[in-house]
């Protein structure tokens, strides 16, 4: 009997303490349209790192929109109003989605800025396969396939008629390339007189991988700029992290001429790569304006389960350029999509590499 009493005491103590920590938490918020709107405005206002650079007056914008927010408006109407805030940021990293990105369907509500809109294509796979890396024209292509086997993680080869020029295509930083694979590629290109590093279509992935790859081009400690992080809720709560990169510890560093091919798709971690090698004299960018996306991304759920993501830092490179809207390459070249006999961007890079 006594043991049952003790068990009861323990159970009662357990029940008494269950949720005790919740008493210390701020109260559970009421979930309604106005509260969801206010929560999103607060997140953008406190966390978004480029309101000034993007010239967004979040107070004025939110006050204007809030007048139209009611608790009986439909989910779609509310989403459209909140989507105006997302669009005002003009930032491909900042989104508002009804469901997380992996679960997006055509019917899902989504607000994402299209940073590609208005820019011509800078890459044509058909032209590449027909003239440079297809099996019919080039037997020397080395490739690491993507994890699902359907794409390319990285490919490296010499170009037809140009045995002394290395060509490396990195269409993504989103899939792992191991240290030993990087070493293998750089060891292979060591004897070549120059490199065409094709970064076109690379919308990013892992910035640490991009930085690791970039470190093979460095000659010494290199100042690449600084990343300005939002570290608190107030308007001026920023802190700069200056970046000095160190060369990779490898015998296969590459210090000969490098032509980095870029287009509007070059975004996020691909921008990380670009600013990491931009200060190097032997590196030249060729192609079209890049996409940018230089900010680090934070994400979460609003109280009603809508997914949000925001840039919570911005990168200012060694030349003092804000990179979020991309940058113009050193040598601008536009691809002629009607002429599939050559890729003008590659051809221009070859000309540059063959110059004394």
């Amino acid at each position, binding site marked *: 009997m006594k*043991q049952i009493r*003790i068990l009861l005491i323990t159970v009662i103590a357990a029940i008494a303490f269950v949720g005790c920590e919740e008493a*210390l938490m701020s109260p*559970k918020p009421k979930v309604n349209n106005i509260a969801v709107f206010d929560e999103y405005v607060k997140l953008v206002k406190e966390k978004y790192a480029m309101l000034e650079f993007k010239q967004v007056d979040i107070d004025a914008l939110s006050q204007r929109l809030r007048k139209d927010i009611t608790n009986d408006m439909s989910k779609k109407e509310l989403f459209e109003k909140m989507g105006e805030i997302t669009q005002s940021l003009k930032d491909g990293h900042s989104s508002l989605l009804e469901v*997380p*990105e992996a679960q997006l369907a055509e019917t899902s509500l989504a607000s994402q800025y299209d940073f590609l809109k208005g820019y011509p294509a800078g890459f044509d796979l058909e032209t590449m396969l027909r003239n440079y890396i297809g099996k019919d024209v080039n037997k020397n292509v080395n490739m690491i396939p993507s994890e699902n086997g359907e794409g390319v993680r990285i490919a490296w080869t010499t170009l037809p008629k140009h045995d002394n020029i290395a060509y490396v295509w990195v269409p993504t930083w989103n899939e792992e390339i191991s240290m030993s694979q990087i070493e293998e590629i750089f060891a292979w290109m060591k004897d070549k007189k120059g490199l065409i590093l094709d970064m076109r279509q690379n919308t990013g992935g892992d910035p640490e991988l991009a930085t690791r790859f970039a470190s093979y081009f460095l000659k010494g400690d290199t100042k690449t700029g600084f990343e300005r992080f939002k570290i608190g809720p107030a308007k001026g709560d920023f802190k700069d992290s*200056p970046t000095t990169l160190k060369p990779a510890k490898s015998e296969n560093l590459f210090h000969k001429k490098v032509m980095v091919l870029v287009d509007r798709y070059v975004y996020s971690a691909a921008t990380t790569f670009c600013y990491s090698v931009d200060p190097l004299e032997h590196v030249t960018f060729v192609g079209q304006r890049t996409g940018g996306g230089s900010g680090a991304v934070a994400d979460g759920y*609003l109280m009603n389960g809508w997914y949000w993501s925001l840039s919570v830092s911005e990168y200012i490179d060694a030349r003092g350029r804000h990179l979020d809207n991309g940058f113009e390459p050193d040598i601008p070249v536009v691809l002629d999509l009607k002429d599939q006999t050559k890729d003008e961007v590659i051809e221009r890079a070859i000309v540059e590499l063959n110059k004394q």
Partner: protein
Amino acid sequence: MQRVITSFMLLLVLTMSGYAQKKVYVGLGVNRSSFQDQKFSDLHIVGNGLNFQYGIEKLKEKKLVGFDLQVFYSNETPSTYKYSTSVFRPVINYYHLRKINDRLFIGGKWNIADIYLRTTEGLGNNGSYMDFSSNLMASAVYYFPLGKKKLKAAIDLGLIGYTKSSTSFAYKAPHPVLVDGKFNMQNSSINTLMGKAGAEFKPVWDDIRLNMELTYAFSKRLEVCYQWKLRRYSTVKNYPTTYGMNAVTFRYNIKNR
């Protein structure tokens, strides 16, 4: 810190094996956990799960010494949407208390490692939250007599902790790294749980840790233990993170002499 912990664990094994082991137990139980990080949301994220315990305890004439490993797992969701968070929390403790009288023991606990990992479905950069800490705690144990048996009540209050949290005000990097302007993609120590970059010492007023425990032995072999663990700290002023766990564990004493 890794070296300190490894050395201590080795020392502990040697020390504890030196005792005529009074009690060695394993336990299994259920828990209810809750979480709120006001940097990101005011929602209370709550869930249930399972827990495991393994421990060694020696009650000597003038002291109470013990070591335990506790592992908690739970699955949390807020009440307003379906995306869940899995929580995994292994905790290792060593405690050493001096006998004050027949019922009361007072001393310290080294919470050697408290690892708190959260993985939230559907999120990208902020999908995983990691926290590592090693804490010195003040401890007290009181034995309430209940006829021929006793109810053991224990309380621990964190005094100072060496902690590292993976998330700043917004970005997934330790706050001290960003505040000091030391973020660098080439510093892998920033994102590793026990890496030095971003770790800091936090006193009790910056990081509240409170544990309470009630243990009752039904028999020589079987015990029931109730625990309540609370942590509340702020990375950024006025934006506290609070989490707690209530667990009931049934323990079996493999040895109890």
